[in-house]
């Protein structure tokens, strides 16, 4: 049986191993692994199993409806992935969200980033068979999902950012809830360090495994925490979209770019995000949360909802017609940088919406990192990458 596979392939005497799509640790994808003994000589990531034609579907939807479509690419990080799109359309519409709305967007983005990182850490834990990290990551993520649901009314698919503002104002008592969550999370982060990050077995699995040097990371276009772990100080938030230009932060940057450092960057970014939310809550300006051009289109009977901190969309809102033009926008998600290229022909629907998600850019790491490592390092590398197949496949 094995003998059949022990042929020459690319000059190697190798075993061809199909990991996935039905495998405990493959995700919605397949990894074709070529093994020479226990050493990986080549990996071909076979992605596309959860391709949902997001780009094509967005061409037959009005702009507002595109928001709730594209957030399904990464429902664990749905604010971050819609924000660049919303800002792009806003630019074409020639409007800008009120400052308060920008701050609220930032707050939700950071909450989403934390829950995305916790999700990634949990998955990273179970890839190393550390079930406690898996359960802790997912359990503590619930705290931030709860915060998001306080703010938006939905656990995952918030559709919070809309053109010209956000859909809900900050609820009463949110600050207290957040401070409670922050205290809890900082305490738990110490536990994570003790149980997971400084665990000798885990360190042994991740240290010097899947090393991505700085030059290679830049050459292959890796993005997000994986790029920063390799020592590149790049974070799309530094461009200052939403309220990031008014907040004080310094991206977490690693040195060597091995698996351990990629995990470390995520752990430290959770701290940074907690800090950012606190800053944003402190500096939160008063004012409207919805652009007045659309607010005044709302019928008077519906105006009372605005006083209660909720936005009612006017009837004409679905038939928005951004001006003709092409626009490029980017934003930093939990997994990395997402970019949109929007072509508008002046109609009610996008003419073309090109989306490049961070996981799609990071998928190349499956090919460049594992060769030379052993088969056991493959889950370690996968886990440290925080790869999210539905996002990559769009």
């Amino acid at each position, binding site marked *: 049986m094995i003998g059949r596979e022990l042929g020459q392939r690319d000059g190697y005497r190798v075993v061809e191993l199909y990991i996935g799509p039905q495998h405990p*640790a493959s995700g919605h994808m397949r990894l074709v692994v070529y093994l020479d003994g226990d050493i990986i000589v080549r990996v071909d990531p076979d992605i596309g199993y959860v391709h949902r034609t997001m780009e094509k579907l967005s061409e037959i939807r009005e702009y507002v409806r595109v928001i709730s479509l594209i957030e399904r690419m990464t429902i664990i990080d749905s604010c971050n992935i819609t924000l660049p799109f919303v800002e792009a359309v806003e630019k074409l519409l020639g409007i800008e969200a009120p400052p308060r709305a920008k701050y609220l967007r930032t707050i939700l983005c950071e909450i989403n980033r934390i829950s995305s990182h916790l999700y990634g850490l949990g998955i990273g834990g179970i890839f190393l068979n550390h079930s406690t990290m898996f359960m802790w990551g997912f359990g503590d993520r619930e705290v931030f999902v709860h915060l998001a649901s306080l703010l938006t009314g939905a656990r995952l698919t918030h559709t919070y950012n809309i053109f010209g503002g956000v859909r809900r104002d900050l609820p009463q008592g949110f600050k207290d809830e957040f401070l409670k969550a922050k205290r809890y999370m900082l305490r738990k982060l110490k536990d994570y360090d003790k149980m997971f990050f400084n665990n000798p077995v*885990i360190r042994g699995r991740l240290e010097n495994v899947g090393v991505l040097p700085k030059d290679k990371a830049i050459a292959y276009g890796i993005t997000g925490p994986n790029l920063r772990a390799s020592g590149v100080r790049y974070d799309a938030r530094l461009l200052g979209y939403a309220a990031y230009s008014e907040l004080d932060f310094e991206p977490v940057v690693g040195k060597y770019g091995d698996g351990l450092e990629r995990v470390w960057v995520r752990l430290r970014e959770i701290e940074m995000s907690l800090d950012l939310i606190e800053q944003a809550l402190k500096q939160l300006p008063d004012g409207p949360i919805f652009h007045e051009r659309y607010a005044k289109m709302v019928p008077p009977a519906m105006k009372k909802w605005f006083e209660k901190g909720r936005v009612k969309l006017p009837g004409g809102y679905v038939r928005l017609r951004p001006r003709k033009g092409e626009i490029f926008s980017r934003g930093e998600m939990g997994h990395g940088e997402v970019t949109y290229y929007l072509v508008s022909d002046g109609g009610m629907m996008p003419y073309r919406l090109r989306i490049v998600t961070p996981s799609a850019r990071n998928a190349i790491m499956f090919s460049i990192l594992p060769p030379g490592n052993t088969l*056991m390092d493959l889950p370690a590398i996968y886990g440290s990458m925080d790869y999210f197949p539905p996002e990559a496949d769009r």
Partner: protein
Amino acid sequence: MVLVELAKILHVPVWALRGFLAPLVYPGLAVLLGTVLFLIWAERKMAARVQQRVGPYYVSPKLHGALQLIADGARFALQEIIVHIETDRLMFILGPILTFTFLTLPFTVLPGGPGIYGFRSDFSMVIVYALLTLSPITVILMGWASSNKFAMIGGGREALLTVSGEITLALAMLSVAAMYGTLDFVTAVEKQMHTGIIGLVSNPIAALLFFLAMLLLTDRVPFDIVLGEQEIVQGPYTEYSGVLYALTMAIDYVKLYALSLAFTLLFLGGWAPFTTPLLGAISVYIKSLIVMLFSVFLRAVYGRMKLDQAMNFFWARLFPLGFVALALGVFVHVIYA
């Protein structure tokens, strides 16, 4: 003695009754089955406690999900056993059954308390060791017979790890044998009771080696490399389903039970401080249960160690340490004498 009277009532010789009861009731199959069911439940409950969740619950809420394993067992019993077309049919089906059988054989000679054993031999340690070393062979064969690459790699890993684990185990057992001057479990326990110092105190290095080797041989975290779910699905057991899968799941727990009993007898003073059969048996059982619970609890703390690091750990660190343990055993023996 109850046993003698029972033998009189049944008109069978005492040795025959012993040889029947020890492997089938205690410490053998009946208690073993209950222990495995309890152990898996306790393992899941303990891990759940650490991980802020409830664990198995809904099958029997009043018993906190203790019947979950029975429900799972019923499900496995009713499931079709799929034997796919490329397998080596005979070996595929015989594999789990043979392995399980090999692993229940040590209970004929492992004493579960004072006077509770199938038969007494001067070489019982050697016999237990030899019988336990039979199982990896069938596991490797299972990996081969499955005709699956994951199973094949799992079988290879089993071979690799068994060698390194069993050497360490043998050294630990040898140092105990040298320490007490015997290869018999009963004599070893009696020596500990006689001197009043348990093996864990007189030779802690051997105890550590034995425990680590036990973790490796029974695929407990952090050494569950053979199962390696995230790389090789379920190792050599990947292709199994139904009752055969339940058997393969039980293999590691049976091994763990046998080795925990041996650990109790060699290092925790066996049935000390009791000398009557009933209390002695309870003492042995509870001690080995604690050992088992501790070894399954590690799953909540560690991840899976890397294969080469585990090999390095066993060959470069523990193997030399084994000779230290052996020297210490001889030294202690001289002091005792």
